[in-house]
């Protein structure tokens, strides 16, 4: 019986002794941490994604408390978090525009032609090395899901050969933007209802031969925009999101439907 009781007493006793010593030490050697840091840390999402540029949420919380980072430093948490943090810091939250990532390509299997059949590793970066990928359009989404793998928030899905980002789930951590070898993922404002979902700088004829939903550079959108919100360069129209009022006229006028819109009837037509 002693064979089991002694070990229990010795180990338990030692554990208890060390526990008491450590708890006393933690009192004696306690370091005063700014209580704000802890409060801010609690209101941050805690994903440690690093999108703020600091090493994890702890780093950002310390920087905010020290006044080295703005209260809206966390892109992921967006406005609700910025407000909470501003409350703790005793300042007013500056209105921030929430940005979400969007894949600027609509050329799925039914719309864009293939150059060759790709049977390699299912990774966009690998496919991109092989003559810029199998898609005939060198600006298009390769659909291998490298961005999907990079996304920690399950916001990206591959539908019909191209990546689609769920803007409700997107936290604008930019992981997909860094992962995409084609550079076709960009941040757009959450409120934005019309987006030119094409990045092709090819001429209109070239685009037409490769993809049925690319920007052919006809400038119909530029001419019809009431806000003069379009920037047209290198055969590609781009919306200035600050000027755009989401009227949706451009999306209606666009002959190839390269301008994506979530407004009213266009939504049904696009889906």
């Amino acid at each position, binding site marked *: 019986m002693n064979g089991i009781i*002694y070990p229990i007493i010795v180990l338990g006793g030692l554990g208890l002794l060390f526990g008491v*010593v450590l708890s006393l030490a933690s009192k004696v*050697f*306690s370091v005063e941490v700014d209580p704000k840091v802890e409060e801010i840390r609690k209101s941050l999402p805690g994903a440690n994604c690093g999108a703020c540029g600091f090493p994890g949420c702890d780093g950002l919380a310390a920087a905010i408390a020290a006044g080295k980072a703005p209260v809206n430093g966390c892109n992921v948490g967006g406005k609700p978090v910025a407000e909470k943090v501003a409350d703790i810091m005793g300042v007013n939250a500056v209105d921030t525009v929430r940005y979400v990532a969007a894949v600027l390509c609509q050329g799925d299997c039914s719309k864009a032609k293939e150059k060759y059949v790709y049977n390699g590793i299912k990774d966009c970066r690998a496919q991109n090395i092989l003559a810029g990928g199998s898609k005939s359009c060198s600006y298009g989404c390769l659909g291998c899901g490298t961005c999907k793998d990079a996304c920690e928030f399950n916001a990206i899905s591959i539908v019909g050969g191209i990546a689609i980002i769920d803007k409700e789930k997107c936290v604008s951590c930019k992981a997909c933007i860094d992962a995409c070898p084609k550079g076709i993922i960009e941040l757009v404002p959450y409120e934005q209802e019309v987006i030119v979902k094409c990045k092709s700088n090819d001429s209109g004829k070239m685009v037409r031969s490769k993809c049925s939903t690319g920007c052919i550079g006809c400038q119909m959108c530029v001419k019809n925009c009431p806000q003069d919100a379009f920037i047209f360069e290198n055969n590609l129209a781009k919306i200035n999101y600050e000027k755009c009022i989401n009227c949706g006229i451009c999306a209606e006028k666009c002959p190839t439907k390269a301008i994506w819109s979530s407004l009213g009837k266009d939504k049904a037509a696009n889906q």
Partner: protein
Amino acid sequence: MSLFTILISTIFVNNFVLSRFLGICPFLGVSNKTETATGMGIAVTFVVTLSSIITYIIQKSVLDKLGLEYLQTIVFILVIAALVQFVEMVMKKTSPTLYSALGVYLPLITTNCIVLGVAILNIQEGYNLIQTIFNAFGASVGFSLALVLMAGIREKFELIDIPEALEGFPIALITAGLMSIAFLGFNGLV
């Protein structure tokens, strides 16, 4: 064996890193800057010496008396873990710069084989308390010496042109191997 022999033996001849290959993780991990290497060395020296004394006392007065030698490993680990926690608290209070410089490596001392290795070797070699203290101190000074030397060499790497394939860890490992061979030269000194 005289105390001086023990000291020289553990620092140079039987250097724990370079000839016994214990504590390789921090040896490669914290040897980027001489400053952090020195800090790590001091932390390890403190923890190893203190834990050796405490483990020796526990071994002789508790484990040996009750015939519980088989609990040696778990008890020693318990002591080391508690001690590292303690050192961490003290360091956080007294030297925040060193604390943040050591970062994750300080808690890693807990699972560092050199700490447990020295504690167990002290018992195996049949040292008395004074010899134990010298052995532990020498071992950790030897560790610090290897770490600081390595850090000094790795700092020089920044300035020289290393072939791309060897950059980073490969060249560090080659350096460690060469240092180990160099320390073999001390063989036969004691």
